[in-house]
Each structure stands twice: as C-alpha cells, then as structure tokens.
C-alpha cells in the first residue's frame, strides 16, 4: 500500500515536472520520507536520482514539441556547480532561518511578477513563436 502511494505521488510529481519544467522533487521528497521511511536528508538526496529520468524524458518530449533551447539549457546545467559553491559560502555567513525568510520573500515577489505579467498579457502567442 505504501509502495502504491509512493508510486502515485511519483507519477504526480512527473506530471508537475512536465507541466512546469521542474524536477518533481516537491512531491518526490514527501513520497520518499512519508511512505518509504527515508530520513529528510536521504529523501532529498534520493529525490535527485528520481529527477534524472524525469528531466531526460521531459527534455526529449519538449524538444519534440519544439520548446527546448538545448545549448542554453545545457550551459545553465553545467555552470550550476558555481552556485552550489556560492550557496555554501552564504550558508556559512547567514543563519538558515534568515535565508529561508529571505528566499520566501523573493519567491512571493517573483510569483507576483509572473501573475501580473500573465494577467496583463495580450492575446496568446502561437506556441511555435520565438521571442528573445
């Protein structure tokens, strides 16, 4: 039963990943921690493994739909370890709580920007249009 629930949450995480371009970890982590008895650290780490096939297949599908700028995406991916180093430096300088609240405020701001832009957008552009 737990296995079924974990698999169902995994499926749902994949749907969110395909729809929104995220890895799906937002649902994988609770699936692993609650239904498969992993600690929070193990769940977050194992979630990363589950994200790999999702990202590969999701990229393949979106490329078929004409929605992937492969060169830019790969560049972001291979440069991201720079950010991990920066993150460690920041984490050592500022308390975790301060970071959480600061990041939450940033997300609320970004969320408002996205919503405002979407609600004020003119007529829908065709899916194949490229804008730069």
């Amino acid at each position, binding site marked *: 039963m737990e296995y079924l629930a974990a698999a169902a949450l995994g499926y749902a995480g994949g749907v969110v990943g395909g729809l929104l371009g995220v890895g799906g970890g937002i649902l994988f982590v609770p699936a692993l921690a609650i239904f498969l008895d992993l600690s929070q650290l193990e769940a977050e780490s194992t979630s990363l493994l589950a994200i790999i096939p999702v990202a590969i297949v999701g990229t393949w599908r979106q490329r078929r739909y004409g929605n*992937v700028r492969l060169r830019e995406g790969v560049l972001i991916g291979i440069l991201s370890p720079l950010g991990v180093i920066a993150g460690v430096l920041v984490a050592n300088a500022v308390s975790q709580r301060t970071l959480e609240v600061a990041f939450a405020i940033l997300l609320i701001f970004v969320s408002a920007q996205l919503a405002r832009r979407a609600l004020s957008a003119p007529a829908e552009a065709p899916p194949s249009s490229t804008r730069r």
Partner: protein
Amino acid sequence: MKLGLIATAAGAFSGLFGVGGGTVIVPLLILWLAYGEREATGTSLAAIIAIAVFATIAQGLHGNVDVAKGLLVGIPAVGGVIGGAALQQRLPERAVSLIFAVLLLGIATELIL
C-alpha cells in the same frame, strides 16, 4: 552573462533549500530573458539533467541515495512527465505562468512555516 547568473542562482538555491533548480530557472528565463512559458519549462528540464546528475553523484558519495526507492518513485514519474508535457501543449502559456505563480507561493509558505 545572464545565463551564468541564472545557473549560479539555481545551484545556490537548490543547494541551500533542497528545491529543484527549476523553481528558480523557469521564472528567471521568463522574466529576464523573455522566454515563452513553454520554452522556459523545456529549457529548464534540459538544465536540470546536469544539475540532478551532479547532485546525485555528490550525495551518492555520502551514501544518502537509496537507488531502489528512487526508482520506485522515478519510474512512474517518467510516465507522469510525458503526460504533463502533453497537457502543457494544450494550455495557454499564461495559464502555465499562473500555475507556476501558485507553486511559488506554496513553496514560500512552506519555507516560512
């Protein structure tokens, strides 16, 4: 230049908060680089491949990755991502932005609580 900043932000936030890089990459591609929603999400998935591979190797070396349980969640998720990507093609782009805005509010709430 902006791509480098987006990469750095994605790496930093995923390392600090355990959120996937996509949470950061998708809105930045839309708001900074004027990507369409579909393009932003597709390109984000391509970036996440490398990010997840690097991070899995790092965590695996620390012995924190349970391969069997990861596959139990990850294999059904592959079916989900195919469905999610197909669903996205039928939605207006602004709907994708709005759903993403709700996701960010949810994550913000979880961080504060």
